[in-house]
């Protein structure tokens, strides 16, 4: 390309150095990197689903309890409502952020936090009951896959709640600085993505599990 022709170029017509003062976009650089992380996180879930696919044949449960014996789909739907509600609340938080409404952001965050905690409480309650009933991840390969997949999602929720707490402090302390807004944006990616993962967990682990 370059060495093909060497016809003289007028030095005054070429731009050799960048003096355009272009600022690189800090916020989207940040969200892009975080999004890449989310995709690799999604790959973790994809492979857990692959493991669940391999370990959810009837023989995977080694004669022990199968999901049809213990999954309560209505209960899982309640969790769905809590999580989708939390995601919606975080959505309204972002609308408040767009309008520079600090009180709105704070109350939105609280809403998302409480509904997310409700989801987690439902999940923990469910797990405790299962363990009490002797339905444990140690019972069979199928149950190992069931528990690890669902609880990996729950762990993400826990992490998100912790993050929201931090953001509550930072929003009230620093206001809407570039850093804080950047973190609100990445948390949005994180939190909303948990809804996407949950759709798969709900449908392909809880509901589909009932058909094994």
């Amino acid at each position: 390309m370059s060495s093909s022709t060497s016809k003289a170029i007028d030095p005054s017509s070429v731009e050799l150095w960048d003096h355009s003062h272009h600022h690189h976009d800090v916020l989207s650089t940040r969200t892009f990197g975080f999004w890449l992380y989310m995709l690799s996180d999604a790959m973790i879930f994809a492979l857990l689903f692959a493991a669940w696919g391999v370990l959810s044949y009837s023989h995977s449960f080694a004669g022990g309890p199968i999901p049809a014996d213990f999954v309560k789909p209505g209960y899982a739907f309640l969790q769905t409502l809590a999580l989708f509600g939390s995601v919606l609340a975080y959505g309204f938080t972002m609308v408040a952020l767009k309008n520079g409404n600090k009180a709105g952001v704070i109350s939105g965050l609280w809403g998302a936090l409480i509904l997310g905690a409700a989801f987690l409480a439902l999940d923990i309650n469910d797990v405790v009951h299962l363990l009490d009933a002797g339905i444990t991840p140690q019972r069979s390969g199928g149950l190992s896959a069931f528990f690890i997949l669902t609880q990996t999602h729950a762990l993400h929720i826990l992490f998100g709640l912790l993050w929201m707490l931090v953001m509550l402090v930072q929003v009230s302390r620093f206001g809407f600085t570039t850093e804080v807004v950047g973190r609100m944006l990445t948390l949005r990616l994180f939190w909303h993505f948990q809804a996407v993962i949950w759709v798969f967990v709900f449908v392909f682990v809880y509901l589909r599990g009932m058909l094994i």
Partner: protein
Amino acid sequence: MLVDLQGPWSPLLGRLALSQIPYENHILAPLFVVVVILGLAIIAAISYFGKWGYLWREWLTTVDHKKIGIMYILIGLVMLFRGFMDALMIRTQQAMAVGPDAPGYLGALHGYLAPYHFGQIYSAHGVIMILLAATPLLVGIMNVIVPLQIGARDMAYPYLNALGLWVTAAAAALVMVSLFVGDFSHNGWFGIAPIFELSYSPGVGVDYWMWVMQLTALGSTLGSINILATVVKMRAPGMTWLRLPIFTWAAVASNIIALTSFPALTVALALIGFDRYLGTHFFTAGLGGNLMLYTNLFWIWGHPEVYFVILPAFGMISEIIPTFSEKPLFGYVTMVLATFGIAGASWAVWLHHFFTMGAGPAVNSFFSVATMLVGIPTGVKVFNWAFTMYRGRLRFETAMLWAVGAVFLLLLGGLTGMMLAIPAINYMVHNSVFVIAHFHQMLLVIVYAIFGAVTYWWPKVFGFKLNEAWGKAVFWLFTAGSVLVFVPMFTLGFMGMTRRLDYVFNTQWQPLLDIQVLGIAVYSLSVLAFVGMLYVSIRDHAKNQVSVDAWGTARSLEWMTPSPVPFYNFAVVPHINARDEWAWRKEHGFTDLRPDHYEDIHMPKNTGIPLILGALMFLLGFGLTWRIWWLCALSLALIIALVIIRSFDSDTGYTIPADEVERMERGHHERARAVDLPAAGVLGGAIAYGQADPAVKGQGAALGGGMTSPEGSRV
């Protein structure tokens, strides 16, 4: 919830006990003494010369991508040496333990390494060479070069970059600690289900292996995010995608693979962890577990991983060959497409590592065909390199020797890979040393490319060239060693020798094993020559100073910066006008590297937090390995707390005023002018070409003038 352990456990020390220190071992105990003495000597030397402050300010807390890259490379070199010592032991043991009459020493029945010890050595060798030698070396070179090639001041996330480095360092430290505290896995580098389950491997070896691999997975994921975001978001104005230097393209493809495939390793290892710590049944032989699920998950990562390491190597070859052929790269666009073709195809071939699982003809055929398809883009690359050299003005300097050597090895490794990709052949040679020879050819491609790249970019980073004569000695010794080790290995593979043998039953194989020992001896000489090369080059560095364009015929953007590169890379960000910008500027005489005015530069501040986080990761890995729960809880809590605390710190950058930049730049230019005069004589050949043949006008031109005067360099 936790499994019951066989053997003692205490709340304070977990499974750790004095008996876990192998002080009665005849190899490890003396080695330990040597390491301690060396460590003390280094600490004493740093204190004596009062260099702690320098070390802390300039290296340990740095967020400069070049220094981080150099530290990655240092880790890689140290671990390369450790892996090489393992190889030395594997080769000598196999040659000594042939036939029932072979004598035994140091408590071994045959040879000098008991099976249990031998198993740890080959497992550690594989893990170290792939994840802690090749990967850090490549990541280090990408770290140094990619931002320079795209005209950026640093990575997109300098802080994350440092974190990736220290996580990798934690992994390296953990694998080294396993030498002296407890033992390492003897399950091979990829782990064999269900032997790694707690009931069959009750010790801490597998745990060490698991956590070392987890840490490298974390480090690589962080690193890949950084490189991808850097290339997408930080390119200088005018640096369109089709002007991107080819090494940067390779880095992009390679890091896409890393980003998407390392999660598979994370998952595979985490599930082993659940089996070993919680007693789940993912990979157990009974109760609904599935052994092959592990193998499957591992190779979903494992195969893309081998391309993660080879694509940057291809990129390096693609930079070196044009420079020393004094021609632009042939078929740039096809090269890019081939790179992505390989990256894409590498995602649908992993079952070729376990054809013998017996998933049936349809599955095996699919993966066989998919594997062979990889040969097409690989072939495109080989032809592109060949056509680049065709009618070029070839200069066989050391870097070029390595690059051309790599291409030959690629042919050998690729063709044997094609053989392995045919299930009917694979059923015969699977798990034989033929496979070992195949992938060592491939990994040698990487080693060759790395040595080439180190030679090639060394002057850019340090401001002087490595000694050519010694470099060529390293090359030829290394090549002789490779031939002597791996030709017999291919032969032994065909003769039926399986891999990982601590005892060789067939006495007829003795001569071939002996030749391999000769080969590893020659390899050892090349290691000595490498050290000699470093010594001589550093001793004579004043004589080998270079200015911007060290080789005279380089083409891409990194050669427009002073050598060594200042910490801010570009005083003023260049505006890109062409693919191979520097070649274009030389051709049109725009070689004056002084812009008309300078501006303030904003740079990230140093921080010690990544280093501390790395240390905590190490403690976490150590605590998990030994099941010291309080240590795990404490280090995890500290990690989370530190991340949160850091997020409250908004003062993470500083500004260098324009006149300060100008002052520093003047220093660089003065140095370059001083260097240029003698250097012109040394590299006169390159200039002479430029003058003699108008067809390559301008390619070597900048050297005469360098940065001093644009007129002078217009040949």
